[in-house]
């Protein structure tokens, strides 16, 4: 029973008219896991999330959530899900506290219990002093924290977060990550979408990289980097010519060269010796940066495109 995955998809497809948003994906998410969908806008992440959230009917394929069929058992499944949508849909007519208590009523939670949970959750997302405020004056980060608190009000087995930190400033993102990390430590299963590789690295035990409705790679962040990228990446900028012009000149250095509009990426296991080789060939880049490989690089290698454009 404990071995049964919380989510299982086989050949899952979602079409809107002629457009195929999700093109036959396979995945399993185990209890307690933090699972991520990484991909650019339009990769099919949100469509997949809406099918998992039982608010969108799959066009084809098999989908089981918490061991149930989302088409037949939608309300029963949703009773055990917490959903944090991409765009905040908090209730502007209600206060911060009422947003939680009203939402609790949608799950049939008794009033007194709803108030108890609301108090506790506001504490958890550090919004206690805003309890009586309306939603509109809150900052983006506060709204997002409130949305996450709202998603927790039914003590869900599975929490779905669609781009939880998009549009937030760095400080707000870190606070949110810290709260989500605590949820994960408490044993809550998290499924999130993101187009930020640092977010995926911070939060996900395992992730799939999506592009054009398909899963192009799957594994832990470390595994993906080790498999698809090199240990280090050298970022070279040249003052005089476009990065493309240097691809031929630097051929043979490192494992791979990727020209971007503003810089050239050089994939190598040893950044310092690669730089020495660049200088030995008589080139003087205007700036040089050696860094560890990230999921961003994995994505670029897999799809030939950057995540955030």
């Amino acid at each position, binding site marked *: 029973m404990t071995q049964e995955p919380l989510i299982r998809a086989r050949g899952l497809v979602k079409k809107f008219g002629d457009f195929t948003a999700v093109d036959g994906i396979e995945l399993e998410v185990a209890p307690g896991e933090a699972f991520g969908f990484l991909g650019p806008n339009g990769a099919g992440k949100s469509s997949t999330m809406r099918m998992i959230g*039982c608010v969108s009917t799959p066009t084809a394929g098999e989908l089981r959530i918490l061991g149930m069929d989302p088409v037949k058992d939608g309300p029963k499944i949703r009773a055990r*899900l917490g959903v944090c949508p991409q765009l905040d849909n908090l209730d502007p007519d209600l206060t911060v506290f009422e947003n939680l208590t009203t939402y609790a009523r949608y799950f049939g939670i008794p009033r007194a219990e709803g108030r108890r949970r609301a108090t506790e959750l506001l504490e958890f997302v550090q919004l206690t002093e805003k309890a009586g405020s309306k939603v509109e004056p809150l900052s983006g980060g506060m709204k997002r924290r409130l949305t996450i608190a709202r998603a927790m009000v039914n003590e869900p087995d599975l929490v779905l977060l669609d781009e939880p930190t998009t549009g937030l400033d760095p400080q707000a993102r870190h606070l949110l990550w810290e709260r989500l990390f605590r949820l994960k430590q408490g044993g809550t299963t998290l499924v999130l979408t993101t187009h930020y590789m640092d977010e995926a690295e911070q939060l996900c035990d395992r992730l799939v990289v999506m592009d054009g409705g398909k899963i192009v790679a799957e594994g832990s962040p470390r595994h993906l980097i080790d498999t698809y990228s090199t240990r280090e990446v050298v970022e070279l900028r040249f003052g005089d010519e476009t990065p493309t012009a240097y691809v031929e000149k630097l051929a043979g250095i490192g494992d791979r060269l990727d020209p971007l509009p503003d810089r050239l990426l050089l994939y190598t296991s040893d950044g310092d010796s690669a730089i020495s080789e660049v200088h030995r060939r008589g080139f003087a880049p205007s700036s040089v940066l050696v860094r560890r490989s990230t999921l961003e690089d994995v994505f670029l290698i897999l799809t030939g495109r950057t995540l955030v454009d």
Partner: protein
Amino acid sequence: MISSYALSPTRVGAVINRNVGALRSGPSYWLVLFSGFFEPILYLFSIGVGVGALIGDLNVDGKTMSYAAFVAPAMLAVSAMTGALAETTFNFFFKFKYVKTFDAMLATPIRPMEIALGELTWAMLRGSLYTACFLVVMILMGLTTPIWALAAFPATMLVGLAFGSVGMALSTVIRGWQDFDLVFTGQFAMFLFSGTFSPVQNYPLGVEILIWITPLYHAVELVRGLSTGVLSISMLGNVAYLVVMAAVGLSIAGRRLAKVLTA
């Protein structure tokens, strides 16, 4: 999403509870409520009492009554209509398209038809609040008796239900605010011609038939019969019309909500 689970009164109640919360949250909702109530009252005084003084008494179906007594039940039916329509057009559309209240609800066990039922009940309650106050005004002006007012009140609830459900169905199909202008034009035309300010027999037969097809006429006939105590068998037909109207509107609204929100 379509599901085999039965509708839950608790979940419908939770949808209504959200609107109670909005009502409690500040003065803005009350202002909207207040202004909506006054419109029919103003018509009753300006046309019913004011113009009525020029007209004198009226003979309708062999019964003599003051012009104000003729207009008042029509305004009562109109206030049930405007109360319910204001809720299911403007407010409903705003929640549906802009603040995504219903998307948030559908992430919980609540189902589209439960949203429709909850919103419709709330709209009917708003209409009923208007008509209850209006009936008190009518009693105070001697335009009805407390007993007939009690008889007319449930009829105004049915009127609210019927118009609320059609308003909600319209809100799920219209493209934007500009389309509401059409709805309001239709609403105003019905307000002027549905036997509100003069008996429909005064119009040419073609117009009379047209009026007979539209809903406010049936609402006015039913409410007027009950509040003046002049009952007729044709009122059963008025009830049937309004019941069918409520059922059809609700069914369209529920389906459209499911289709749009769970694509």
